[in-house]
Each structure stands twice: as C-alpha cells, then as structure tokens.
C-alpha cells in the first residue's frame, strides 16, 4: 500500500455565493464521501482549509497576504488515503462533490524515505 494526497482545487464556497440550501447539500455530499472512505478504512487524514492565506518569502522572510493564485485555483482542502495504485485513487476521487462547480482533484503520491 502507498499513501496519496488528494488536493482539492477550486473556488471558495463563499466566493461562489452558494445559498444556504446548496451549502447544506454540499456538506451532505462531503460527509457521505468521508464516511464511505472511513468505512473502507482508507482515509488517514484530511482537512478543509480556510481561503485566506499568508506567505513568507525569501531570505528576508517577507510576509504577504493572500490570495496568491486565481480565485478558481484555491486549495480548499486535502485528504491522505492509502491505496494500491494511483488508479485506485482515481476511483476514490470519483466521489469528490465539487466537479460541477469547476473544482478539481490533484493526486500526488507521498514520498516514503528508505530507512
């Protein structure tokens, strides 16, 4: 088994102007997906991220306020899951709820350092 990170990229719910009803429905879908992964015992960790960001850059450690990318490319959260292969993660990522909002899932394998 390998570990993969699924990174969710898309527009912030607040910026999309979703209604209460839509927010509740979205949340239900995320909840169901999370539950499905928990039941399958594949999810190791995962969090949603706030949209506001800070960045520290360069030798002078200059701090600047985000956002740093286009509003449609904000990283909204991540999951770390265990799977045999990246193809298996494609399968898992089918249930990501926000494709219809223009969201995307980036899959990255986590590097394991040899002892």
């Amino acid at each position, binding site marked *: 088994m390998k570990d993969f990170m699924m990174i969710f990229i898309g527009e912030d719910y607040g910026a999309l102007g*979703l209604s209460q009803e839509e927010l509740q429905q979205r949340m239900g879908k995320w909840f169901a997906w999370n539950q499905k992964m928990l039941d399958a015992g594949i999810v190791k960790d995962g969090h949603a991220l*706030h949209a506001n960001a800070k960045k520290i850059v360069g030798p002078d450690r200059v701090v600047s306020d985000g956002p740093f990318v286009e509003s449609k490319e904000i990283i909204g959260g991540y999951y770390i899951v265990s799977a045999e292969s990246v193809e298996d993660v494609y399968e898992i990522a089918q249930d990501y709820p926000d494709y219809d909002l223009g969201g995307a899932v980036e899959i990255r394998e986590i590097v394991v350092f040899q002892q």
Partner: protein
Amino acid sequence: MKDGQIIDHLFRHQYGKMVSILTRIFGLSNLEIIEDAVQDTFVNASLKWRTKLPENPEAWLTKAAKNRVVDLLRKIKADQNRITHFNNGPSSLLLNDLFLDHEIEDSQLRMIFIACHPTLNPKDQIGFALKTIAGFSTREISSALLLKEETIKKSLIRARKAIKENDLSFEFPEKQYIPQRIERVLEVLYLIFNEGFHSGKKEMLIRKELCGEAIRLCKMILKKEMFRTSSGYALFALMCFHSARLESKVNDQNEIVDLKNQDRSKWYQPLINLGNDAMIKSTSENKINTYHFEAAIAAEHLKAKSFEETNWEKILHLYQSLSELRKIPINQLNIAIVLIQLKNYPEAYIQLMEINPKKLEQRAYLYHASMAEYYKVTKDKKKAIEAIDKALELVKNEAEKNYLTKKKANIISGEPV
C-alpha cells in the same frame, strides 16, 4: 446521525433565525452586514462539518451566531453605545435570552412585519421576505418568482434603502395599527403561497418550498395571540387544502394533471385535517373574508370522492359570494367555468362575455381556454379551435402549453378530455 443527514432546510431556516436575532441586537440599519456575517457562518459550517457533524447542529449554529455577535460588536464601531449596553452587566443576560426559542420566533415575527411594512414597495416585499425570513438566495428567489436575478438584487437594495431612509425600528406595529398591518402580512404570505401553488413552470421542488414557507410563517403568526385573526386561520386552512393536492397536480413526466384526472387517493390527508381544524377556528369571529371563501371552495373539491361527485352548486354559490367581496376577472372566470360544469351554458356565456381578457394579464390564456371549453361543449368545433389557438398563442409556460395542445387534439377528435 451516521448518514450525514441533518434536518431538511436546517441551514435555510437557521439563516432566517440568526438574521432576525442579530437584527434585534444591532438594529435594522446594520442588516446588510448582518446578512453577510451570517452567510459566512454557514460557509464555515459547511467546511467544518464535512467529516464530523456536531452533536447538535442547531445548537452549534446558534453558538456560532453568538460568536458572530461578538465579531460584529468589534466591527460595528458606529454603534458604540449599543455595544456597551449589550456587553456589560445584566444586559449580557438579555443577550442570552434572545437566543431562547420563543424570543427567536419573536424576532422573526418582527422581521415579517418589516418585510410587509407599508413604506416598502409592495413589489419588493415578497423578495425581501423570502431572503431575510425564509433564507432564500437571490438565485433561488429569481427562480421562485420567475424574475431575473438582477431584478431581485435591485429589489432587495430598494427594500433595504426604504428601511434605512424611513428609519424603521425593529419593533412590532403599535396596537392600533396591528389589524391593518396583519392584513398585509397575510396578503404577502398568500402571494408567496400562490407563487408556489399556481405556477406550472417551476420545478416541483421550489414550488413545495414556497408553499412550505408560506405555511410555516402563517403558523408562526397564528401562534402569537395578538396576531391571531379569523382571516389568518382561513388563510392557513386554504394553504393546507391546496397543499394537500399539490403533488397530484403534476405527473411523473412533469405534465399538468387537471382536477378531473388527479389521483384523489394521493391527496394528503394530514394536511386536510389540519385545514379542517383551522377552518373551524376561522369562524370563531363573525368576520368572513376572501380567504374563507377560497378555503371553502378548496375544501369542497377535497370532499368530493370523484370529479363527478363534486358539488358544483355549492361551489358556484361560494364563488359568487367571493366575487361579491372581490370583483376581479379571475373570480368571474371561475364562475363561468363552474357554470359550464353545471351545464348552464347560456349563463356561462353571459359571464364569459362580461370578462375583458386583457384584465387577466398573464392569465388571459385561461380565458381563451375556457372559451374553447364552452364552444366544445356547445358543439361549435370551429370556434372552439379558434379559441384554443388564441390560448396557445398567449400561454408562456411549457407545461401549460402541452396541456392545451392535448386539449386542442381532443377538440379536433371530439373525444372527452
């Protein structure tokens, strides 16, 4: 709550509650800031609850709203006096009290009266009520009222502006004004309900929600003794009776099913019972208004076990009484339709001739469809086709158009509908 299901519309209803409570604390002049802040709370909740729902979501949201109050207190510097008032000593107890159930309802009722305040343009009242009390988004309001989103946005801005310019306070009307103010409130609820009940163009989901909201708000008003009126009960009865057969008005293919062909076993009995109960209460005062007659007509239809068993005589009588109270073309048109059912064609014709279809505005097609029905039953096929063509020309909504197209085919083939 394993499946991640929380109460239907919890967010939406909670939105209305929070906006009302916070408005009570910060005043109507801060309404816009309050709405934005509440919206943020929900965006946050939808992220936080992705993996685990809180034990009691409602309590969580209430707490978040309270925290939001503190945030707002910091942000709204202009209202310093008010802030100290709520921050110190015994008043902080008062703040907590506002989050008790009955106080929440009290706040929401205040908001209903604001939405229906005479200084607001009547056209803006419905949208404002749906947004602020019912928690609809502008997009949802636009599909509910079949208006452009831009129009709704402007309407909301106008409503907020009217509130600010007239410096409305978040209080109930003074006692002597309550009767007239409550009438307008009921009228707005009636309009919201009709938006849900009568439009075949909207999706069933949004129609149910509009009807549901109107019923919920009407119930809230009836709960409070000082706002309880016989017309309120009659309106509530009317809404229950109509809602009982909302679902049978459309079939699985999203086609309109007329009263004659509705599956009467699908009519929802618990709502009919609720309506009957309200109907009894509505007669406790000796005042009768249009809601009473409309409810009685709806009840009469529900009573009939089949379309053929409908007591048209009684319905005619009720429509006539209704028309005396409110002489509008649609009531007269209904009288004509009932007369056709009673096979009193000459009288039906007289009624129809008296109506100016233009005054029916977007419902003018109903007039021509009724004319077509008249000519059909009096066996004047040529004129019946002419009339139905006119109706088809005027009708905008797809489902109604399909219904009329079928009707035209029936006229041509000479078969009963």
